[in-house]
């Protein structure tokens, strides 16, 4: 069996591990356009901020490829997917029996007037991109970040550790709109601002000049370095060109098979099914990518597996304040907050289920909530008061506790 994997990040590694669970023999070739041993993309901000060494950037140990008998073609781009082969940028054709497309996403850069005049502009997506930033940034470098989402603020945090003077600008009226509600966003915003990072909301860049940006609210922000972190777009072109179905991202079934025969896709480039809302969306999350890759790998090696129970979820911290969120916020809400202590909790219920939550500050044991959303545990057998108090196993009925903790099955 010949396996080809395009991409070298979490989904690709998941694919390798998925394949190798059952097939120790098949030939696996990874094609990556980067020159690195597999590394963890989410770590780039930590690396930039100096929290992670070069050594610790790698997602798997240095012997990973050897141990898993994987051939890696570094700095090679796949240009075309044929019926049984992939054409590379050097013209080589790589034959496959099963192909995994784990191409991830690329930064989205909206058209902004004068952007082409800015020399020191960067995105925040790859190790190379942060390496470039690191070369330029100095103490008190003025940094303008466009985008107060996850990537923009993670970049801000990293630069804060490098003592840069940071301004974050976002069109939205609050930060982290994709994961936080208004109240939680305020707490976080205050927390970040208290650290000296400037946040300008409900504003966008009217026009760039080489070292400054004029905003729509009339302010002008000078900068040495510009980071555009507005969002990402999935890399779907290879599949689209080969005739595979692509919507917001690559469409797969729950075995991660695309509409093309023998071609699988996983990770940020694909569309996932969010079981908390029963809708399809891109879930650009590392755990999601790895697990999709693993499922794809298993199926590629002939072991049937299905990827279900995907939900949006995020565990992230900014400037030392941690948040864990998951699911959807559409439903009946229960909130508890203590902004002075930077504590916030929101639980969202709908249809007799826990649908989503936001935890800020005290995030301990959040996974218990996550599992309730993923497993769609009916609240009838759950002690709601305990559920609201904090994540705990005590809220479940004895049968579930005994099964989960005691490894035994009993009748309730």
């Amino acid at each position, binding site marked *: 069996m010949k396996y080809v994997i395009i991409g070298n990040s979490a989904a690709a590694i*998941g694919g390798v591990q998925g394949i190798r669970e059952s097939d120790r023999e098949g030939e696996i070739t990874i094609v990556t356009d980067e020159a690195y041993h597999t590394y*963890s993309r989410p770590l780039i901000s930590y690396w930039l901020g100096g929290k992670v060494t070069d050594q610790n950037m790698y997602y798997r*140990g240095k012997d990973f490829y050897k141990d898993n008998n994987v051939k890696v073609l570094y700095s090679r781009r796949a240009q075309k997917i044929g019926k049984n082969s992939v054409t590379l940028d050097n013209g080589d054709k790589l034959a496959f029996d099963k192909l995994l497309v784990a191409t991830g996403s690329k930064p989205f850069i909206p058209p902004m007037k004068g952007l082409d005049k800015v020399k020191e502009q960067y995105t925040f997506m790859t190790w190379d991109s942060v390496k470039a930033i690191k070369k330029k940034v100095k103490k008190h470098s003025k940094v303008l970040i466009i985008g107060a989402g996850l990537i923009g603020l993670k970049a801000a945090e990293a630069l804060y550790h490098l003592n840069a003077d940071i301004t974050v600008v976002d069109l939205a009226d609050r930060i982290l709109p994709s994961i936080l509600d208004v109240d939680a966003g305020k707490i976080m915003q205050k927390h970040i601002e208290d650290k000296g990072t400037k946040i300008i909301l409900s504003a966008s860049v009217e026009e760039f000049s080489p070292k400054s940006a004029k905003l729509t609210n009339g302010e002008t922000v000078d900068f040495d370095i510009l980071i555009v972190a507005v969002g990402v777009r999935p890399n779907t072109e290879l599949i689209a060109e080969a005739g595979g179905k692509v919507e917001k991202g690559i469409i797969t079934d729950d075995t991660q098979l695309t509409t093309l025969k023998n071609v699988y896709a996983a990770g940020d480039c694909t569309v996932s099914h969010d079981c908390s809302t029963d809708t399809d969306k891109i879930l650009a999350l590392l755990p999601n990518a*790895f697990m999709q890759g693993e499922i794809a790998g298993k199926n590629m090696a002939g072991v049937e597996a299905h990827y279900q129970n995907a939900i949006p979820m995020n*565990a992230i911290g900014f400037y030392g304040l941690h948040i*864990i969120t998951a699911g959807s916020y559409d439903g009946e809400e229960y909130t508890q907050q203590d902004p002075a202590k930077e504590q916030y909790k929101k639980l969202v219920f709908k249809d007799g289920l826990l649908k989503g939550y936001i935890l800020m500050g005290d995030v301990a044991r959040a*996974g*218990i909530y*996550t599992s309730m959303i993923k497993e769609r545990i009916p609240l009838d057998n759950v002690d709601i008061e305990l559920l609201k108090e904090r994540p705990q*196993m005590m809220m479940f009925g004895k049968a579930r506790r005994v099964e989960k903790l005691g490894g035994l099955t009993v009748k309730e």
Partner: protein
Amino acid sequence: MKKVYVNEDWCLACHLCEYYCAAANSGADSMIKAFAGGKKPIPRIKVEEGSGINFAVQCRHCDEPACVKGCITGALSVKDGVISCDESRCVGCYTCVMSCPYGCIVISEDSSVIQKCDLCLKNNNGEPACVKGCPNGAIVLEER
């Protein structure tokens, strides 16, 4: 594989497992030293107390470990069925805290990394300290 199981029928909520766990993983060679001078090492096992019901919760060492799969750094790994964390590689992102359905990933005292039960494989305790220390057999290491 032998795993730690808890039986809530026998948990007395004495919390000794937490202390034995914390001490065993503290690096100190005795319970007294581990807690000397008001130190409060973090246990990787947590006793939940309710009205008449108590039990300890610690890593189940799942066959399909969401924590390991979701780990962004590769700090969490499975070896011979035992899930352990290489704290030197952990960046404290808490993705595992978000993923663990049992709430068994604990956060270090300084919040910088996560810690978790590794069945006392790393601390040379032999048998898991919680199992050894439980006065009522509510925590057992068994093949089930």
